[in-house]
């Protein structure tokens, strides 16, 4: 698509000023980085904007925003379309690699019930480690080739790991390390910066417009937006990971998406997960 070649980065300052103007004090006025205050303001913004939505329901994305959709979803949950992927993930998880080891050997608690702790900041490496990244590193450390980040096997594995963690509150920590704070801040900045030919930030759609329809799609609120990943989408006729969703959203605004698991995407996921602390893991999810 030739339009893709034109990218226009709006300045972050406009986006930051914009949010303050919008009456959403999601960002501190001074440049002190204060994740605790951020998360509090962020959650309050959504509770105030949608007083009728139960806190734990925000993780249901578009379904939390629309009663008709919500009903359809509950009917659909009786035969969840992610079932197949979940079964596949369960099987893959227990099957040993060629060297006899398993995924369980790479993770705390054998990988069961730990989704809520991802992504975490690795102080040795000085970077954010997401679950998808940790899974591929586990494979490579055991002599197996990495999987594509966007669907199929990666979706199946993360679906199973999310499923064993359902209901556990998101619990992301920011260690007392300036690099961790910087990663958080960088993710936040990415989230609020307008980009692409259409000049949208992530926040334009998921903070300013949740519940609105963009064509036929109801926009999910940013609060709890990663808790249901991975998701089955009818529109994809299949599963997609967090990586798939982030890159797809970037393409929709005619911005060139980053590669999956690029540092910036990892930081965005870190930011979004941190400000959603306390909301239950609900993945795998199903979406229209």
């Amino acid at each position, binding site marked *: *698509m030739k*339009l893709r070649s034109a990218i*226009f980065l709006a300045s972050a300052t406009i986006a930051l000023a914009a949010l303050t*103007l919008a009456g959403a004090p999601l960002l501190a006025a001074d440049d002190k980085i204060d994740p605790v205050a951020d998360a509090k303001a962020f959650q309050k913004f959504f509770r105030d904007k949608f007083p009728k939505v139960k806190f734990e329901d925000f993780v249901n994305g578009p379904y939390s925003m629309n009663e008709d959709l919500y009903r359809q979803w509950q009917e659909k949950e009786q035969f969840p379309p992610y079932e197949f992927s979940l079964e596949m993930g369960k099987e893959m998880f227990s099957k040993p690699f060629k060297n006899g080891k398993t995924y369980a050997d790479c993770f705390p608690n054998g990988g069961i019930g730990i989704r809520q702790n991802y992504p975490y900041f690795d102080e040795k490496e000085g970077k954010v480690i997401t679950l998808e990244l940790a899974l591929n590193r586990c494979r490579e450390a055991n002599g197996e080739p990495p999987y594509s980040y966007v669907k199929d096997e990666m979706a199946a594995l993360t679906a199973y790991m999310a499923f064993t963690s359902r209901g556990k509150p998101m619990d992301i920590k920011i260690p007392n390390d300036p690099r961790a704070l910087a990663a958080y801040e960088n993710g936040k900045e990415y989230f609020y910066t307008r980009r692409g*030919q259409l*000049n949208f930030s992530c926040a334009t759609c998921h903070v300013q417009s949740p519940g609105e*329809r963009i*064509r036929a799609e109801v926009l999910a609120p940013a609060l709890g937006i990663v808790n249901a990943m991975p998701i089955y989408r009818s529109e994809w006729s299949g599963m997609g990971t967090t990586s798939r969703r982030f890159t797809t959203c970037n393409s929709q605004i005619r911005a060139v998406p980053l590669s999956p698991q690029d540092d910036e995407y990892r930081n965005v996921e870190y930011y979004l997960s941190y400000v959603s602390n306390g909301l239950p893991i609900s993945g795998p999810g199903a979406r229209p």
Partner: protein
Amino acid sequence: MTDHFPTKSAKLPALALLVALASAGTAQAQSAVDEGRKLAFDRSKGNCLTCHVIKGGNLPGTIGPELVDIKSKYPKREDLVAILNDETLRNPLTVMPPFGRNRILTEKEIDAVVDFLQTL
């Protein structure tokens, strides 16, 4: 007297030309409106339906206001051109893309869309 006939005969084609011009004018205006509508509805161009209800368009979104009575609300065409060029100048918070500034639509295309808007 002698020049009467030539004048008169010259008037006829002139009149015919005028009529022809006038109808070509409306045809041209009509085709600009059609072109504008096409651009407004086309997903890879204006894609205005993503956000606006517009008469005649399917599956509209709800982010922006319905586009109705545009001519009475914005009698001046420059105002519409300005909104399409870069609505962030009027409202820094807007989610409406800057169609002109970011070259999503050319000047000519914006003109056609404005022609179409003025019929709403």
